[in-house]
C-alpha cells in the first residue's frame, strides 16, 4: 500500500574507512584501517525527520558529510530525489547541492567573522542564482532572517555581535534561503544553552512544516532527538545497530546498546 511516493533520500551500503594512525609519520602504511561508516543503508521519506544517534566516534558526523558528498565514500550509493549522487560530476553536484543544505553544531566556527550577516545569508543566492539583482538578494536575505526571528537590522551586523542562539538562527537562515528539500543538521543545539536550544528546536519544527523540509538530524542526545524524530537510527562503531519508528526505539528498544544509551540519560525525576 505505502511506498507509492518514492523516498527523498535513499542510501545503500555506504562505507568509509581511514588509515589508522595515518599521516606522514605512520610507520606502517599498509596497517589496519579504521572503519568510520560500515555498510550503512536507509531511506528517508519526504517530510520526515530521520535521526542518527550515537556517541562520539561512532561515525555519525562522517555519515552526515558523506550524504552531501563533502566527504567521498569508499563505496555505496546515494539516491537523492531520483538522482544518483555518486554519478554526478562536479558542476552537476554543485547545482544539486542547493537542494540539500547543512546546519552545523558550532555557530561560532561556521560563520565567516569578516562578513556581514546579510552577505553570509545571501551568499548561497549569489552562487546559485547569479542573475538575481543585489536588491532582490538583500530582500530575500532580510525576509528569511525575519522568518528565523532576527530583525532586518541584523543584515548589517557581524557574527560576533550575536549570541550563540542568534548565530544558529543565522546558520539556519543561510541553509534555508535556497529553499532546499533536505537539511542535514549536525548537532544543531548541543552548543546552546537549555532555554535557547529549546527555541531552536521548536523553530526547526515550525520551519519543517512551513517549508516542507526533510531532515536528517544527527545528535548524541536521545532527549533532543526525541523532540523531532519520526524515525531513529542508533549508530555504534560505524554501523546502525537499531533503526525504527521514534516511539518504538525510545520506549521499546530491541538492541542492548539502545537500552544502555537510554538508561544513561539522566532523568529530571532523579537517579
Amino acid at each position: 500500500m505505502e511506498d507509492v511516493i518514492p523516498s527523498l533520500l535513499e542510501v545503500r551500503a555506504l562505507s568509509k574507512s581511514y588509515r589508522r594512525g595515518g599521516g606522514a609519520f605512520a610507520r606502517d602504511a599498509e596497517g589496519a584501517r579504521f572503519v568510520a561508516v560500515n555498510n550503512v543503508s536507509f531511506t528517508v521519506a519526504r517530510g520526515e525527520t530521520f535521526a542518527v544517534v550515537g556517541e562520539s566516534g561512532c561515525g555519525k558526523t562522517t555519515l552526515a558529510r558523506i550524504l552531501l558528498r563533502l566527504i567521498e565514500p569508499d563505496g555505496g550509493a546515494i539516491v537523492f530525489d531520483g538522482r544518483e549522487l555518486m554519478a554526478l560530476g562536479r558542476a552537476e553536484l554543485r547545482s544539486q547541492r542547493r537542494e540539500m543544505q547543512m546546519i552545523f553544531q558550532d555557530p561560532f566556527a561556521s560563520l565567516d567573522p569578516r562578513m556581514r550577516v546579510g552577505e553570509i545569508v545571501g551568499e548561497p543566492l549569489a552562487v546559485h542564482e547569479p542573475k538575481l539583482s543585489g536588491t532582490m538578494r538583500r530582500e530575500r536575505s532580510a525576509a528569511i532572517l525575519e522568518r528565523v526571528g532576527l530583525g532586518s537590522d541584523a543584515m548589517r551586523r557581524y557574527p560576533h555581535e550575536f549570541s550563540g542562539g542568534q548565530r544558529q538562527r543565522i546558520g539556519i537562515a543561510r541553509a534555508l534561503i535556497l529553499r532546499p528539500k533536505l537539511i542535514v543538521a549536525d548537532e544543531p543545539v548541543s552548543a546552546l544553552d537549555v532555554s535557547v536550544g529549546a527555541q531552536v528546536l521548536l523553530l526547526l519544527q515550525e520551519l519543517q512544516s512551513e517549508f516542507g523540509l526533510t531532515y536528517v538530524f544527527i545528535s548524541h542526545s536521545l532527549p533532543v532527538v526525541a523532540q523531532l524524530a519520526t524515525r531513529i537510527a542508533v549508530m555504534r562503531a560505524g554501523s546502525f545497530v537499531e533503526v525504527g519508528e521514534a516511539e518504538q526505539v525510545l520506549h521499546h528498544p530491541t538492541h542492548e546498546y539502545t537500552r544502555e544509551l537510554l538508561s544513561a540519560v539522566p532523568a529530571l525525576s532523579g537517579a
Partner: protein
Amino acid sequence: MSELLNVRALTVDLPTARGWVRPVNEVSLRIRAGDSLGLVGESGSGKTMLALALMGLLPPGAKTGGEAVLTPANAEPQNLARLDESRWRRLRGLDVAMIFQEPMTSLNPVMRVGDQIAEAIQAHHTKMNAQDVHRWVLEALRLAAVPEPAIRSKQFPHQLSGGLRQRVMIAMAIAAGVSDPSVETTPLEHRVAGEPLTKPRLLIADEPTTALDVTVQKQILELLDTLRRRLGLGLLFITHDLGVVARVADRVAVMYAGRIVEEGPVGEVLGVPRHPYTQGLIAASPTLVRGKLAPIAGTVPQLSALPPGCSFEPRCPVRLPQCQAAVPELRAAGYMHGARCVLVGEEVTQDLR
C-alpha cells in the same frame, strides 16, 4: 557532618570596557562535608565566576565582597574572599580543588599523568620522599577508579580516552588530600574499609561531564558520588543540565544573572519549582517524551544592562508591576526551600538552612 563552606553575600565585580559588572551578586550558600550542592545556570549566569572566586582564580582586577568561609577539619576557618596569593597557594589543591569541563586543556600534554599528579602532591608535601609520592599517586588513581594505575601513570594525556582523562583530573584534585599526614600513620594495607582517607575538603566540579558521552558521564557521576561519601568531600557541582543535577546533588541552587533565584532540596526544586525561571528551565529541558518542550522567551540579560528589579522580569510569563521596582528577597517556598520571587509565600528573614 561539619560545615565546610559558608558563603555569605559574596559579590564579584569585574572591570570591563563598558564599566564594572557584577557576575556574582550577593550569593549565599552552605556546603557540609560529604554533601553535594548542584549549582545550575545557563551561560552568563555567573556560576563559573563564583567557582573561580572560591578557587582564588579570578581574573586580574576583580574585586570581591562579602565572605566565603572555608573550615577545613583541624584548621582555622579561612575567608576565601580575602586571601592573599601566598595563603591561596597553601590552600589550593589541598583544602579546595577544582575539575573542569575539558580535561585536555588542564592537563600538560607533554608530561606523564603520574608526574602531574605527583606535582600536585609535592606542592603541599615538599619533604615527602619520592617513593611515598609514587605510592600516593597510585592510591589517588585507584580512588578515581583508573584501571591499571601503574601503567596509566606512565602514559601521556593523549593516550587516554576522555573519560580516563577526567578520572586523572579527579585523581589530581584529591591527591594532595590523600597524602594528608594524619592518614599516613595508617598504612594502606592496614586501613579499615570505609575509613575516611582525607580530611574534609571542597571539590568544585565545573561541567565535568559536559564533553563526555552519556555512558561515560554516568560512570563519572557515580565516581564523584562515591568519592564524596567515602572521602567526606563537599561537592559543588556546576552544570547547565538539570538531569545531571538530579543525579548528583542533595541540594540545588539555581543561578540567574548573578543571583541565586531558587535553592532547596533537589527533589523539591525539580519537583515543585517555585521560581518562574526554574519552571521555565525545566520546561525547556528535552526529555524522552515528545511534544512537551517549551522554551523560555528572550535571552539572558547583559550584565552591563540588568533590569532594576527582578532580573528575570523581562522574560517572565507571570510578571507583576512590582517586579520592576525592586529585587525580590529570598522567600520561604517549602522546607529548606527558598525562591526569589514576589509570588512566593513569606519573606525569609532568617537564614534558610
